[in-house]
């Protein structure tokens, strides 16, 4: 009885030991694939929207959007940009009379955007704006064509 009991215990142990001895060490994990790390280059600055108004808040956003102004108004063009990096924004303000145009003002601003930004350009004329039609074109970097154009009226 005792012998049988010992045998009953030893046999499974031997089997386990045998299996354990036969088992080869697991192969080393394969080296990680050699690929370039994912590039997380931010998108370059782009113009998303342009809003006109006669006043802006502390956040530089137009408080009351409008495309019609009075002669004594300061006129704001608020340019929302997305993306990040260095960019040059240029606002070209023009008076339009029929097929003739006259340059009103041209202002350039260089920014180092880290993300979405609010950029405002403004013009005023102490002697009063002549009545008529105007436009403001927003150029990004060295582009020859505007990224956005807004027309407005002074009456």
């Amino acid at each position: 009885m005792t012998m049988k009991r010992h045998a009953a215990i030893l046999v499974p142990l031997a089997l386990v030991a045998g299996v354990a001895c036969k088992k080869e060490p697991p192969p080393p994990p394969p080296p990680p694939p050699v690929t370039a790390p994912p590039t997380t280059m931010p998108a370059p600055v782009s113009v998303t929207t342009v809003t006109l108004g006669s006043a802006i808040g502390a956040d530089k956003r137009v408080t009351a959007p409008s495309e019609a102004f009075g002669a004594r108004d300061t006129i704001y063009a608020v340019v929302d940009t997305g993306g990040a990096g260095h960019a040059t924004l240029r606002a070209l303000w023009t008076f339009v009379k029929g097929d003739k145009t006259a340059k009103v003002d041209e202002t350039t601003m260089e920014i180092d955007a880290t993300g979405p930004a609010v950029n405002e350009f403004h013009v005023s004329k102490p002697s009063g704006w002549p009545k008529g039609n105007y436009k403001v074109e927003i150029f990004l970097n060295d582009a020859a064509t505007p990224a956005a154009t807004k027309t407005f009226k002074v009456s």
Partner: protein
Amino acid sequence: MAPQDKDDDMPDFSDVQSGASSTAPAAEVHETYEIKPGDSLSKIAKRVYGDAREWKRIFEANTDVIKDPDKIFPGQKIKIPAKETEEGGEGR
């Protein structure tokens, strides 16, 4: 008086004041001005800043196109740095 390079039918916008600012850091603002006959840096500084002695600010911002402050030419486009106390600030 310096001759004006403008269409007689069109209004005069020479007294327009402008500025810009941004929520983005390191915003640098300047106006672009095209030199007209009869202009000098001190005349431009007087008109823009109200002080002819500020001509050095304009010269220093344009050393890439102006080598001699006494020699500027009609048609040259120069940068006019924004007034430091201008409405809206520069976003710096």
